[in-house]
């Protein structure tokens, strides 16, 4: 995670990576110090870009501030429940981790492609994930994986959708993949398998509230049509 410090200061990360890195920063004083120092250096780059602003800008800005209330000195926590904030951060962390974690097992070229795909998917689904996690009737359930790690399921009847966040400690062995299942009337349907070497994912599942449970298994790559192994985790909804 800390390898992102340069990209973070240069604003060269996407929103999810930014959220994940800022979470990391909260726990790491040395990293905050490095960020502060890098920001000073980056600001010097900005110092080289003077440009006379259009005269109207001054009047507009000075006018705008007369009707803009200042924030209080100590940032007030958002009224959103804490839990939800953590969830968004957790989703961000998982997506970021999926890009990095998957890489360890893959060869360079494959890794670049995979990371890129993850980044693209993250950008596309991020707004949707946030919308679901912001639903007022959100139900959140969490289970540990027998193989190590955690699966979190957030589901909302109002949006008729849910988000499954899988964060395993490590990817299954070669030729094996994590697979997600939604279970309805004791009948499991695949909600997608992860790639080989992949240990984390965030999946949006349309219609999830109609299911009674979410299951996780480890299957032969690229995944199975019905579960062939005992459940690694079962989350009752």
């Amino acid at each position, binding site marked *: 995670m800390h*390898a*992102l*410090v*340069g*990209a973070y*200061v*240069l*604003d*060269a*990360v*996407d929103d999810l990576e930014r959220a994940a890195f800022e979470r990391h920063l909260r726990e790491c004083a040395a990293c*905050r110090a490095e960020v*502060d*120092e*890098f*920001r*000073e*250096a*980056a*600001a*010097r*780059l*900005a*110092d*080289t*870009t*003077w*440009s*006379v*602003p*259009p005269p*109207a*800008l*001054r009047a*507009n*800005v*000075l006018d*705008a*501030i*007369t009707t*803009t*209330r*200042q*924030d*209080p*000195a*100590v*940032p007030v926590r958002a009224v959103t429940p804490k839990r939800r904030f953590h969830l968004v951060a957790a989703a961000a962390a998982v997506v970021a981790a999926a890009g990095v974690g998957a*890489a360890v097992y893959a060869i*360079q070229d494959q*890794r*670049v492609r995979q*990371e*890129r795909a993850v*980044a693209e998917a993250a950008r596309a689904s991020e707004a949707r994930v946030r919308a679901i996690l912001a639903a007022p009737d959100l139900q959140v359930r969490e289970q540990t994986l027998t193989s190590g790690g955690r699966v979190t399921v957030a589901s909302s009847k109002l949006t008729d959708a849910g988000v499954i966040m899988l964060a395993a400690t490590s990817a299954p062995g070669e030729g094996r993949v994590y697979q997600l299942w939604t279970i309805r009337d004791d009948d499991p349907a695949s909600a997608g398998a992860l790639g080989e070497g992949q240990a984390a994912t965030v999946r949006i599942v349309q219609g999830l509230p109609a299911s009674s449970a979410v299951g996780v298994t480890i299957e032969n790559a690229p995944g199975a049509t019905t579960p062939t192994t005992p459940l690694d985790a079962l989350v009752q909804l």
Partner: protein
Amino acid sequence: MVTPVLDIEALLARVARGDEKAFARLYDVVAPRVFGLVRRVLRDVSQAEEVAQEVLVEVWRRAPQFDPGRGTPTAWIFTIAHRRAVDRARSERAAADRTVRAGIAAVDTPYDAVADEVAVRLERRQVRHCLDELTGLQRQAVTLAYFQGHTYPQVAELLGAPLPTIKSRMRDGLARLRDCLTTGATA
């Protein structure tokens, strides 16, 4: 620094207490740099004007939260400005997918001067000198991200380098820049 740091810090402290006159003076000191940076990233004057206004109003709004223990007021202001400029550039780019071509066209002149910029010669000379101290890949990674608002995967693609390499070059590039700018303060 072109403007004494203490001046800005004193002004910002007054702004934090809601002093509109102090803000007008702060505006005169920092607006050309804010506008210059935003314009550099966005390459469009009317958009730059819009975003610069958002940035400066945000500076007013968040002034009470500025923490001198975390750094200089200019770094704080430019952090706000850069983030907003990059956010706007990305949403524009997403609409009109012109990232790669624009990026490649600009790789050759990562820190060229804009014609009507007010030259801040000494500062520029030192920053340029320090940018020249970086390796080619460090310099390109840092400037493509900072001045053109590219993400590190985009920079990796533009430069044909692996992602971990680009992440590292951004970090060690900034570290070298920091070292050069601090030791060379009197150059």
